[in-house]
């Protein structure tokens, strides 16, 4: 596929997804908007971990950077009575710029670090977030965070679609842009440079590749994607607070990437779906089971974490390549079983 065809494919998927929002009820559309936000973060993280081998435990912090940038810009524009399209688009630009700058700075510091040391650095970032928010409480609103005054759906649309459907559209469009851009990256020469750096740094150096530049670049791109995800979350939930970008959430992102399939974009989508659906399903289960009210309420918030862990273990045992790997293997097998009219599968 040429780059233009790839963008075309992304646009085609986007159109289908937007068409699907007409079938979904408002609550499902809201979940779809959340999924879109998570896709932004997991797709960047998946490539970061899978392609350059840099482990980030602090991706929630980059989402938070994007979300706070979005909130501050959006509130300032609302104050200044900015025209609708500006109020809608500029905050997203701010989110991506701020998040990538933060990502590049951390990337520069982290480019010399490997494995657990880099993980430690990013971990510190996400743990420091509440302290940063309360130290600069005047700006970031402390633990309570900020209320985000956003540009709502245009008036002429308000009779046609619900707020949630509009939010899903915004989320899907942003996710499509991130996804499309990363899909180009995966097929570009840079992807090969990244793999070279990941697999053997000395060999990469001998081939004239600057490992620091490759790593920092990927870190920045990944943070920018996460920042856009944070922007979508801020837009949809109209709130930013340090509690929403906790260490647990950060680890969820990483676990989701591993469950989906590290290093692949399709895996990132699976991961985002898992993040959104697992709490939904566990809530449905605890409500369906004849448990005492107190126990089911207690399970309500905690069971999802357990289920996440179980899914991770099961997926790692049954499909080490993640959900995407399992699905790809399955479709491959089905294709091979087709009638002999198809050309025989190449043997290696």
């Amino acid at each position: 596929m040429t780059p233009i065809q790839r963008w075309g494919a992304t646009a085609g998927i986007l159109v289908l997804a937007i068409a699907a929002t007409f079938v979904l009820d408002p609550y499902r559309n809201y979940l779809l908007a959340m999924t879109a936000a998570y896709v932004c973060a997991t797709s960047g993280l998946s490539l970061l971990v899978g392609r350059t081998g840099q482990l980030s435990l602090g991706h929630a912090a980059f989402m938070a950077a994007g979300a706070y940038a979005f909130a501050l810009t959006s509130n300032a524009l609302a104050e200044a009575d900015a025209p609708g399209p500006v109020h809608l688009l500029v905050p997203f630009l701010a989110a991506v710029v701020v998040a990538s700058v933060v990502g590049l700075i951390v990337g520069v510091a982290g480019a010399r670090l490997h494995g657990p040391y880099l993980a430690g650095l990013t971990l510190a970032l996400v743990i420091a977030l509440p302290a940063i928010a309360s130290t600069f409480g005047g700006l970031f609103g402390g633990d309570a965070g900020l209320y985000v005054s956003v540009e709502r759906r245009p008036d002429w649309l308000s009779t046609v679609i619900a707020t949630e459907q509009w939010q899903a559209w915004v989320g899907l469009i942003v996710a499509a842009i991130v996804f499309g851009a990363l899909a180009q990256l995966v097929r570009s020469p840079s992807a090969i440079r990244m793999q070279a750096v990941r697999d053997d740094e000395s060999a990469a150096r001998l081939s004239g590749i600057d490992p620091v530049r490759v790593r920092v670049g990927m870190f920045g791109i990944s943070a920018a994607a996460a920042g856009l995800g944070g922007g979508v979350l801020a837009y949809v939930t109209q709130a930013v607070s340090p509690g929403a970008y906790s260490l647990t959430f950060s680890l969820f992102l990483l676990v989701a990437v591993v469950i989906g399939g590290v290093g692949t974009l399709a895996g990132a989508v699976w991961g985002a779906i898992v993040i959104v659906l697992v709490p939904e399903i566990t809530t449905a289960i605890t409500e369906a089971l004849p448990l005492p009210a107190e126990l089911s309420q207690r399970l309500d918030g905690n069971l999802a974490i357990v289920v996440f862990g179980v899914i991770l273990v099961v997926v790692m045992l049954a499909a080490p390549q993640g959900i995407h790997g399992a699905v790809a293997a399955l479709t491959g097998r089905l294709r091979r079983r087709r009638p002999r009219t198809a050309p025989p599968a190449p043997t290696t």
Partner: protein
Amino acid sequence: MTQPHARATTVSAIALAVAGALVLSSCSTPQAEAQPGLTDDSIKIGTHQPLTGPAAASYAPISAATAAYFDYVNAEGGINGRTIDYIVKDDGYNPANTQTVVRELVLEDEVFAILGGLGTPTHSSVLDFLNDNGVPDLFVSSGSSAWNQPEKYPGTFGFQADYVTEGMVLGQYISEEFDGKKVCLFGQDDEFGTDMQAGLEKVLGADGLAEVQTYSVSNQDVAAQIVALQSAGCEVNVLATITGFTALAIGTAAQLKYFPQWVSSSSGADYGPLSGYLGEAAPLLLEGFVSDNYLPSATEDDNKWIELFKQVNDEYNDGADFTGSVVYGMAMGYLFAEALLAAGEQPTREGLIAAVQSGELKGSGLVPLGFSEDNHSGYLGAGITVVHDGVQAAIDKRWVRDGDKVVVYDKPPVELLSGGIPS
């Protein structure tokens, strides 16, 4: 080719006619618009509460108490023949979760109304959503003045005396009882702290506070702030703190051999949990502890409301620790039952809001409620409680807010009638 086509046309014409007839016939019946969550014998309402996470320890008992009160009402036949189905969702005090669970309640479970959603940051994030969807958003569990914006949020109502009012009431008591002493404030670094400060300064004057120190919930070490208060020579310290931090402040000060007069907002003054935090030294450290409250105190003996709530707590709440949170939760349930009764035999969402605005609701507090068409705040003032020998009891001093000052309220508190079930 024409025949199947024609048949399809006929079928769809019949379907349209049937649908049209259904629409028309449903229009002529009294329950013209089906109200979400409402059937002939039940009404479904929901709330978001911190059942897990850092805020759970102090606030999870509230919704359990409300649920117990509704069980009591349902056992007695409900309100207007309808039982109350109360759905509690956990948001872990995290606005991102609140967004999700409230949408689930409104769009999936189709609740009739939201009751007592807890927390300022959490509930702020769903104000627009609830009002856009015309969902009655009753009695938010937080003292923020954000709930009182009838123009912008016509469906949202407060419950507590707001923090500014609490600050004014405490300021009035301080100016009467501790005149000439150096007054300081130790507050949370958000609206809770700043609103209390504004209230205190309205009464004590702009320079009425000698020192203001703040804390952030994510940092459990308050020694620096307490030392600052001590070295500023503060004699009366007002606390705009949640329960855990009230205990931290008093405990830390005691370790520093610093024993000022403590005066606390009702939000962090629940004697039960406080003595739990402070352990054996509690009776000594809390002796003379002043706070405001708009509801009767849990440790009071001769109060009919407390007697009833204790009874309901034993019977329907497995005899959980009877604290201020339990009283709060049950008072919340009672107020909703009152509103539902006032909304009539066939309540609608608009009707429920109109019933609250009618000003007929009495509540179970020490002071009157402020609900009217242009006021959506809850209790208008508060009384003073003082701890003496391990009992936190109201002394007969109550004020209600009137603009920028407070006036004495001396009418008797609301009486308990008909077994605590509005009728």
